């Protein structure tokens, strides 16, 4: 008789843990921030920049960055834009509903390496979500860094995330926050134009600056170019990449970007490491 044995357990790699949604906040027309707590208790420690795989029963699973506070590991926060099947299902879950979570996965922002440097954070659209934990860390440990500047661009004033928080950050004297929109609507009196237009005006010590960038790929492309123009070398620019992802543990092959697996080696990369591939179309 051929024998069958039990295989290794899937926990820790392929099996989601149940989380209960404890709070849902609408950010924009199609974007929601969810707070969740583990059904079975415990904490999810993470490094700013990392992501989780979020599973909806009967629908599917997608990668979503962690946007919560790294010193609050008992509450998991995700900001999700409803763009398709799974993200629509995630954003339809009500308080008390259940989601599956695997993670955290991937690399984080270089917050340790950036100590002693000026830090520029450039976010486009939803790109502010994975940067939020990094910003919270910078603010909490303000004395470890030089000047801190945050540039945030959204399509319209209606598309801005974390509006109340942005107000609070703007009120602080120890950081520079600059916000711009592509199209002004309503009573918008602020900057109009893409986020890269704010870069030349940065008040920073260029030779001593680290930049953290996240947004649509095209936005990151132009941002790197502007930061270079200012004199910030590729070695001190970090970007967060997005690719199709099915497993997040390096098995499914979908997230390959040249030699990199974005799920494992990224999503945050030092720009010079991926530059050769970033410059080729359709890698």
């Amino acid at each position: 008789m051929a024998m069958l044995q039990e295989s290794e357990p899937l926990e820790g790699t392929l099996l989601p843990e149940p989380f209960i949604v404890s709070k849902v906040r609408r950010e924009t027309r199609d974007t929601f921030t969810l707070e969740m707590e583990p059904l079975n208790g415990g904490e999810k420690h993470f490094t700013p920049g990392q992501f989780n795989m979020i599973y909806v029963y009967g629908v599917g699973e997608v990668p979503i960055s962690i946007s919560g506070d790294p010193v609050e590991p008992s509450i998991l926060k995700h900001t999700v834009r409803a763009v398709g099947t799974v993200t629509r299902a995630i954003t339809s879950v009500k308080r008390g509903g259940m989601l599956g979570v695997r993670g955290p996965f991937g690399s984080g922002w270089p917050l340790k390496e950036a100590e002693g440097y000026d830090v520029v954070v450039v976010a486009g659209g939803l790109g502010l979500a994975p940067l939020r934990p990094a910003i919270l860390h910078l603010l909490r440990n303000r004395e470890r860094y030089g000047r801190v500047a945050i540039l945030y661009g959204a399509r319209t004033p209606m598309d801005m995330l974390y509006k109340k928080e942005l107000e609070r950050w703007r009120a602080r004297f120890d950081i520079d926050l600059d916000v711009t929109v592509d199209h002004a609507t309503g009573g918008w009196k602020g900057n109009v134009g893409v986020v890269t237009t704010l870069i030349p005006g940065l008040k920073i010590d260029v030779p001593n600056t680290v930049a953290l960038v996240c947004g649509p790929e095209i936005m990151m492309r132009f941002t790197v170019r502007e930061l270079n123009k200012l004199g910030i070398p590729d070695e001190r620019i970090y970007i967060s990449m997005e690719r199709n992802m099915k497993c997040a543990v390096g098995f499914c092959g979908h997230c390959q970007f040249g030699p990199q697996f974005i799920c494992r080696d990224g999503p945050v990369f030092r720009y010079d490491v991926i530059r050769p591939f970033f410059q080729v179309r359709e890698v």
Partner: protein
Amino acid sequence: MGKLNIGDKVILSPQGLQQLIKTLWEEGYTVIGPRLGDGAIVYGEVRSIEDLPEGWGDEQEAGRYRLRRRGDKALFGYNLGPDSWKRFLHPPRILLWKAEKTPKGFRITHNGHEAPRYAFLGVRACELHAIRIQDKVFLQGRYKDPIYMSRRANTLIITVNCTEAGRTCFCASMGTGPKAHEGFDISLTEVTGDEHYFLAEVGSERGSEILERIEYRAAARDEVSEAEERVSRAAESMGRSLQTEGLKELLYQNYEHPRWDEVAERCLTCGNCTLVCPTCFCTTVEEVTSLDGGSSERWRVWDSCFSLQFSYIHGGSVRASPKSRYRQWLTHKLATWQDQFGEIGCVGCGRCITWCPVGIDITEEVKAIRENAVKKV
């Protein structure tokens, strides 16, 4: 006879091989080996030597495969068919887990996997390398694939060295064959002619235990050299070759080579090459929900970088053009794989050449890029 040690060589008759198969089944192994099926040699359950493709060989060329009668009684006289052992270690479809709906949400109900105990009979040297390459993918990174791990740990490997190379083979230039040097439990070389016998080499403790339970006799020196002679003849009769020197640099520097456009004109992006390749490992997941929504299953299924879906992110596919998809496949196999796993991801088995419906040949594509490279390497 006394105890067999690793490295010992003995002779098995076809009857000895029959006993070997029987013993493996008795030991609780499911023996998988070559069988005739669907107009090709495929891998399936083998319960006796009667199941092996006696007297069958094949003719292969780019885009062409045909079985032929050999005119002898060779049991392993074929080259590779479309199947590879990844079908068993990394199945085309496997249930990851199952959940059922509860008032609060869902509950995982099934998360155990049966890990069969396979004995692979007839693994070629290049295929053994392919298994080692997949070991690196699934077992030697930060995360270990529990499904692959269990199957792999249970598997006993009996290699059969090639004594003839196929027209699309190029293992010799990849350094992966035609002789298996390590990583097997038992290695066989088949010698046909006046006397039909197998030279068996012990590769592991497990292998020696199995061999000790069947009839064998000591190998005479000329029997050993005859078998080795036949294997080296295979090395000299490779239908193709691939120059691996500087290959990574060559491909890294030639992302924009005109040859990619040219091959894209021919490539159907059917993905056959990725399915037959013994090292290709990509998968996707499917959520299969019962009609009433009461239960849901997560299945992992083979996927191919040739599909548009594969690289889809909101707004469109990253690799929209066929050119970028063929380039991804070939560059991954031969270049980026080296940075990811420390070696080339191709073992030179030639399957992708044989089973490409339009006969695209990986060795020819590399040659064309090399001849006309942006930068010669």
